[in-house]
């Protein structure tokens, strides 16, 4: 083999090595890019799940509030019923007292 032939073969080999490294570089870049895409996708999924949970919590709070309000309303109605019942038995005496107050008795 001549010297020239030898150099030619080394240059070819170096070119091959360079192409190999290029491929590895491309693959490495792809790995990092894919990781960024995967992390975006994971972030999106986690935040969407959190939003769903948030809405469920708020909806439940509203429902609980409405239920509690209903109880309060019913309780007020019962109180008014009791008031009216008590008033019936005390009304006559109260009118007598009020009349006496106005008349100065």
């Amino acid at each position, binding site marked *: 083999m001549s010297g020239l032939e030898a150099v030619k073969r080394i240059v070819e080999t170096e070119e091959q090595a360079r192409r190999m490294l290029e491929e590895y570089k491309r693959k490495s870049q792809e790995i990092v890019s894919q990781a960024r895409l995967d992390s975006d996708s994971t972030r999106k999924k986690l935040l969407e799940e959190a939003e769903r949970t948030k809405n469920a919590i708020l909806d439940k709070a509203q429902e609980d*509030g409405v239920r509690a309000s209903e109880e309060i309303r019913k309780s007020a109605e019962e109180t008014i019923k009791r008031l009216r019942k008590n008033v019936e038995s005390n009304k006559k005496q109260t009118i007598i007292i009020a009349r006496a107050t106005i008349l100065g008795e």
Partner: protein
Amino acid sequence: MAEALDKLRSQILRDAELKGSDMVKEATAEANKIVAEAENRAKTEAEQIILRAKTDAEAIKRRVISAEQQKARWTILEEKNRLVNDVIEEASNEVRKYVTSKDYTRVLSKLIAEALESIKTEKYVVKLSESDRKRVDTGQVETQLEKVLGRKARIQWSDEPYKCSGGVFVSDEDGKIRFDNTFEARSQRLERDLLHKVSKTLFGE
């Protein structure tokens, strides 16, 4: 020569292979770091969202309940006011009818006596309603008044009627010092006392 060349060529390729492998290993490590850090950040963000939601939820519940409690208190208070006013109205009606009762002259004398205690003067002018002027025995009133006061008072019964349903309007001779002891004025003056007594008796408070 050929052997040396082959060795060199293999070395070049092996070096490239090693370098390439290291590149991929580093990229993989970086990728894992990127994914892990992003996941942690996202989890923290998600936890914040849920924590804020829980705080907001409590506030929503409190607001809804508080509004309903306030409304309930008002409803009960309105009903109590209505019941009290009903009673006062009925009592006022009974008071207005009282003018035709036999006991009315005694009541008049007491009302006049109260007015006299407030107005310190020599002579008093007493006004009655139009119907009382025609109906009431003023002599009887004066007799009862003397019993109440323990003395005789100088009273002049005015010819001028006073617009009221009952009771008396008393003044000095000049009309400058006055005491309105009509039923209407009394109801107004005693409103607070009346409301208190009525509420106490009606609701047992």
